[in-house]
């Protein structure tokens, strides 16, 4: 069990990291766009980078959060079946779900890596003030799918452990303040 606890602690940290990245992205967007508006009112230069960079960073805000959303169970599913299941049935469902989502995410990850290789070959760059390769942004897709697979695996493992031992692994508070 200490191993399991360590594993889940690690996942907590990982989830927190994704959340911090997302928060930084949102905070940057607020600051950049407010600055853009203010700068334009005062001086009129209208730096395109303040307007164009925040949306370009959205994939990094969003895709790494897929796994976190799955963990937090944030109204992203049709919660229909769980209502009809006994606690043990729900554990079975979670095990199945974790496995299915993990498999799906791995498949998407392979697709994402395939696409990433294409975009690296294409070597397109951005058009904003600072030029950087577009694949830096496309990287957020495979990273997101990998994290999703990883957290889905956790869901399956915890469900399995609970089924085998009969005791709850954690109080399902998943490290997110609501």
């Amino acid at each position, binding site marked *: 069990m200490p191993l399991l606890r360590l594993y889940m602690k690690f996942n907590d940290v990982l989830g927190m990291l994704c959340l911090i990245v997302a928060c930084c992205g949102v905070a940057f967007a607020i600051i950049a766009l*407010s600055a853009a508006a203010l700068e334009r009112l005062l001086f009129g230069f209208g730096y395109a980078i303040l307007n164009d960079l925040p949306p370009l960073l959205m994939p990094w805000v969003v895709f790494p959060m897929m796994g976190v959303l799955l963990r937090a169970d944030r109204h992203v599913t049709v919660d229909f079946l769980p209502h009809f299941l006994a606690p043990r049935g729900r554990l079975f469902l979670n095990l199945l779900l974790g496995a299915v989502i993990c498999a799906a995410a791995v498949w998407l990850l392979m*697709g994402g890596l395939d696409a990433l290789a294409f975009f690296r070959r294409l070597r397109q760059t951005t058009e904003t003030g600072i030029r950087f390769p577009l694949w830096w942004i496309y990287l957020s897709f495979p990273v997101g799918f990998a994290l999703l697979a990883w957290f889905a695996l956790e869901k399956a493992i915890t469900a399995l452990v609970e089924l085998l031992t009969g005791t709850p692994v954690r109080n399902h508070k998943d490290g997110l303040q609501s």
Partner: protein
Amino acid sequence: MIPIALAFSSILLILSVPIFLVFGIGSALIASVDLNLPWATLLQVSFAAVTKQILLAIPLFIFAGYTMVKGGIATRLVNFCVTLVGHWPGGLGVSMVLAMGFFAAFCGSILAAITAIGTVLMPRMVEEGYPKPFVVVLAAMAALLEGLIPPSNAAIIYSSLTSVPVSRTFAAGIVPGIVLMVMLSAYVAWRCRHMPRSARASWSERWQSFVAAIPALLTPFIILGGIYSGLLTAAESAAAAGVWSLLIGFLIYRELTFRGVIEALVATAIACSAIFVIIGMATFLSVVLTFTQAPQHMIDFLTHLGTGPVTFLIMVAITCLLLGTFIEVVPIFYLVLPMTVAALAPLAVDPIHYYIVLTAFIGLGMLTPPVCVGLYTGAAVIRLSPEKAFKELPGFLMLGIAYGLLMILLPSLATWLPGHV
């Protein structure tokens, strides 16, 4: 492959696999097996959708909303509304509608609206004897205003999927929003005519509550004024709303804390990712739809049937209601719009009118179980088990459908104001 992918997606949906993944897997299967498309195409189109400048307004308006939740704005707003109409029949209920209407003009988050106004007003209503289920459904229904009254995520998403400028979709929601407020207030007043009424507030009380609410009430003028005067783009006005709500919270009401800002940021990051992953994966579906030319087939079918605009809108409305039962607001936009938007011109439906009809019927999905985020959130505020609230649904749903039909039959309610700004 298409029937297999559909069946597979339905199974995933029932198993409660996250909706974004259901979209992603089902569409990617068809794209890679049937259409033989490279993965790069799916990612490229998804990337283009997620990085649209205009969509950035969504997280920014959500942040403004959550900052207001933390910053003490809701209390002032509710006090102001209660001193204004609290003595009417069903006065607290009407105050809820009014306060939700105001709050809807501040931000782009339905859940923030329910949480903010609900936390202040719902316990008070229960205390005064309003039945809990009624209170919950009213809060969820009033949140429909959030989608209509600008700024709204529905308008932003609609604009990003069509070529209608966001300033026009924003303007389109104002009159229909007010109509909904009137209809809801009338329904509440009639339903609660036997309830004990609050004492009429004196003019000095009203004045005081008004003065306290002024900084909050200025917000819509900053947002819409910024956009319509040409000083701010939509995304910038969203950022300005966030900065303004920080200023009010820290400097004027002094209830906002640094911790509160961080919590608002976290709530925003989660809410916005939940919306954007759906956008990102729903575009997989739109790739499939375009490559199979499904929308074109549907338009040919409609023209073949000789469908007129009203029939078309009613068909779409029924589809939205059915989908809304099981699916959330944002994915329905991404399912329905790409399929139908090309039919608007041949059928002579004004895109602005279509926007209002869609928003009205998709918004009702917030109420219909089992997937009804609005109702769950409202129930959570007063710790009622959501199932208990279901018995109040038929009345409100009927009202909502009547409202939607009104929007179908009277296009000028939607199109009049955008033609004048």
